[in-house]
């Protein structure tokens, strides 16, 4: 494969790459590290052999956990094509339908039969498989696949894959933000290269990373973060080139009022003097980061260090990481605080003009004060979008925005998503669907008319089409 002579190099898996493991609908984001054990679907895997292979290759997991490129594709398996009985009227379930015994199966495994082949054998030896309803067939195959399949595909990460992964594996970490809802957010906020976007999220960095992907390293993203430090595990998983991180800035929301009032002190101070305040922040951060990072990715503190420290401090950090000595940590903290202050000043400068091009909010905080506070940093005629798992807080946002003025084009929406099975004579919507994908409030800022009081009705939609706000008749 190496002698294709085209630009394959960019598609090859390299050491240190952030990749996504895939089996069926199961995804997992990991980093390729030498002799590092990775658990995937209850199996130990070493990814070393993937290095140098092309992305999207399917590997067989050998005993011992090493990978071997597989000729068989993980895609639509021939099993899906088994003819289904559309009714199970002939089935008498006596528990004797499977003719292969446990021992038979073990023997097959020892003979080195691959998972997919074992399942095929199980199906072939199932007396009444063809009579099962399609639903039962799918259930059966899924169960067996989980048990016997031992292949894994290695993918290059993308917003699509990571959003599906988080939604499937750890929806609690991303406020149950469904991937189609995230898709709406990116589009409604008109995220694109060259703009200056404000993000407030507690979605493990998934939203932030998705925005950075869409900006392609052009423009700036300012992460407004609560507590002691920004959470960015999800951003790492995107595996962006280094220069993308130059476009990423962060600002603690606890300084928002000071910044708005013009009283924010961004001069570099002796960090020890700041200590008590910072300590408080860090305590708060620990409390608030009740979103544990992905298994392989260390503690939140290491995380933000990796991201926050520039090249200048990089070597020190590496050394200290190995030592993990308490004294060293204090030194790191000091460096970090200095760096933080420098960055704070830089970000404050970016925000001061109140001329951001977009605002995206997706957090476990009440969106109303967040939105009203951060909206002030946007230029007129710029989109914003707020996600919430619940509709009620967005209803409140909607009402407040109508009262305050300064926005038009307000919409409170959700999306309904349905997947289909398309097979000859067996086409139908999937039997299971996601219950809800959360709600979005979106709108566009406009210039506020200072000649009128902010609470004036005039600031809302033009009169002729004013929405009926009161309705007692129902």
């Amino acid at each position, binding site marked *: 494969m190496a002698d294709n002579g085209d630009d394959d190099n960019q598609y090859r898996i390299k050491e240190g790459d952030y990749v996504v493991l895939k089996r069926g609908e199961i995804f997992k984001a990991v980093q390729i590290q030498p002799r590092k054990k990775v658990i995937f679907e209850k199996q130990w895997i070493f990814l070393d052999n993937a290095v140098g292979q092309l992305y999207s290759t399917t590997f067989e997991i050998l005993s011992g956990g090493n990978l071997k490129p597989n000729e068989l594709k993980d895609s639509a398996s021939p099993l899906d094509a088994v003819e289904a*009985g*559309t*009714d*199970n*009227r*002939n089935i*008498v379930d006596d528990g004797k339908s499977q003719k292969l015994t446990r021992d038979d199966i073990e023997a097959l495994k020892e003979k080195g039969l691959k998972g997919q082949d074992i399942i095929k054998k199980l199906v072939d030896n199932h007396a009444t498989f063809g009579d099962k*309803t*399609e*639903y039962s067939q799918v259930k059966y195959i899924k169960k067996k696949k989980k048990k016997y399949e031992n292949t894994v595909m290695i993918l290059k990460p993308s917003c699509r894959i990571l959003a599906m992964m988080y939604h499937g594996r750890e*929806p609690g970490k991303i406020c*149950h933000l469904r991937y189609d809802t995230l898709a709406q957010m990116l589009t409604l906020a008109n995220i694109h290269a060259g703009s200056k976007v404000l993000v407030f999220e507690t979605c493990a960095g998934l939203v932030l990373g998705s925005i950075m992907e869409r900006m392609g390293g052009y423009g700036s993203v300012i992460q407004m973060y*609560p507590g002691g430090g920004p959470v960015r595990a999800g951003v790492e998983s995107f595996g962006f080139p280094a220069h993308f991180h130059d476009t990423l800035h962060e600002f603690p*929301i*606890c*300084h*928002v*009022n*000071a910044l*708005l*009032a013009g*009283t924010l002190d961004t001069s570099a101070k002796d960090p020890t003097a700041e200590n008590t305040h910072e300590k408080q922040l860090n305590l*708060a951060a620990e409390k608030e980061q009740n979103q544990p990072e992905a298994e392989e990715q260390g503690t939140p503190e290491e995380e933000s260090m990796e991201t926050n420290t520039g090249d200048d401090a990089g070597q020190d950090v590496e050394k200290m990481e190995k030592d993990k000595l308490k004294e060293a940590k204090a030194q790191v903290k000091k460096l970090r605080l200095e760096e933080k202050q420098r960055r704070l000043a830089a970000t404050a400068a970016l925000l001061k003009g109140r001329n951001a091009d977009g605002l995206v909010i997706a957090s*476990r*905080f*009440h969106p*109303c*004060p*967040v939105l*009203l*506070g951060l909206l002030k940093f946007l230029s007129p005629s710029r989109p914003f979008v707020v996600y919430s*798992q*619940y*509709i*009620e*807080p967005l209803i409140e946002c909607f009402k*407040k925005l109508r009262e305050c003025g300064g926005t038009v084009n307000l919409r409170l929406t959700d999306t309904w998503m*349905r*997947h289909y099975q398309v097979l000859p*004579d*067996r*086409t*139908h*919507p*999937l*039997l*299971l*669907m*996601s*219950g*809800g994908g959360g709600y979005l409030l979106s709108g566009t800022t406009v210039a506020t008319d200072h000649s009128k009081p*902010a609470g004036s009705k005039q600031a809302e939609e033009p009169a002729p089409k004013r929405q009926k706000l009161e309705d007692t008749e129902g």
Partner: protein
Amino acid sequence: MSFVEYSDFIQDGDVAILYLSHNNVMPVKVQQGAQTQTRYGVIRHSTDLIGQRYGSKVTCSKGWFHVLHPTPELWTVALPHRTQILYTTDIAFITMMLELKPGSIVCESGTGSGSLSHAILRTIAPTGHLHTVEFHQQRAEKVAEEFKEHRVDHLVTVRNQDVCKDGFGVTGVADAVFLDIPSPWDAVGHAKVAMKKHGGRLCSFSPCIEQVQKTCEALQDQGFEDISTTEVLLREHDVRTVSLPLPDFGPDPETTEEATPAAAPNHASITLKTTTLPREMPGHTGYLTFATKPRT
């Protein structure tokens, strides 16, 4: 007790429903002297059930629950699955769209586990009749037995035959026909024969769109009118109280009226009543195709 008439007290020979928890209900045949094991411990029918009021609380060694009067809807949740069954959301819509009411004569195939049958019987009692056809012999026998236990056997005739070959066994009597079989198009002609000369309503339930397409074609060929296909899905909302923290934007040096209206300094939070949808829910049961048989 009967599935078509309420009683106040549990009697020997009744079928009662133990309501253990949401989505966990268990039918029990009440018999003098019998015992039933539940996850909350043993219940003794003679003392715990017989003579008690339906709706009473029964306390066992490891917990308690309520005994409920059977209804077709509780039965749908409790019944032993011998096939895939129709659930209440589809059943409710079918009942209305077939215009079922006391006195209706209905044909059904297949009977399956009898989930829909019980709901039909409830609605057409005391003067209607259900002719239900089941291909599978054991199932036909089992469901006939259940009808007897549920004291609705006087309202129903169970036939063990192939509806596509042998039809419903009745001619010109049905107000409504329901089909839940793999190839409903093969039974449309038989349905027409079973229906009243003046006309009536038909419903066919199919999971796949290709089945719907063939069925609609057959219905049109047989002169059925007002053919329409509908899907109904239930969404169950989980009621919960959630607490949303308020952001801390720091001390507000200006304290103007404009600044951050709801921001509270001490990590305050707002509690609200809301609902969430389950992460996964039934996304499809089947397509319901309805049609009217005109006067023939």
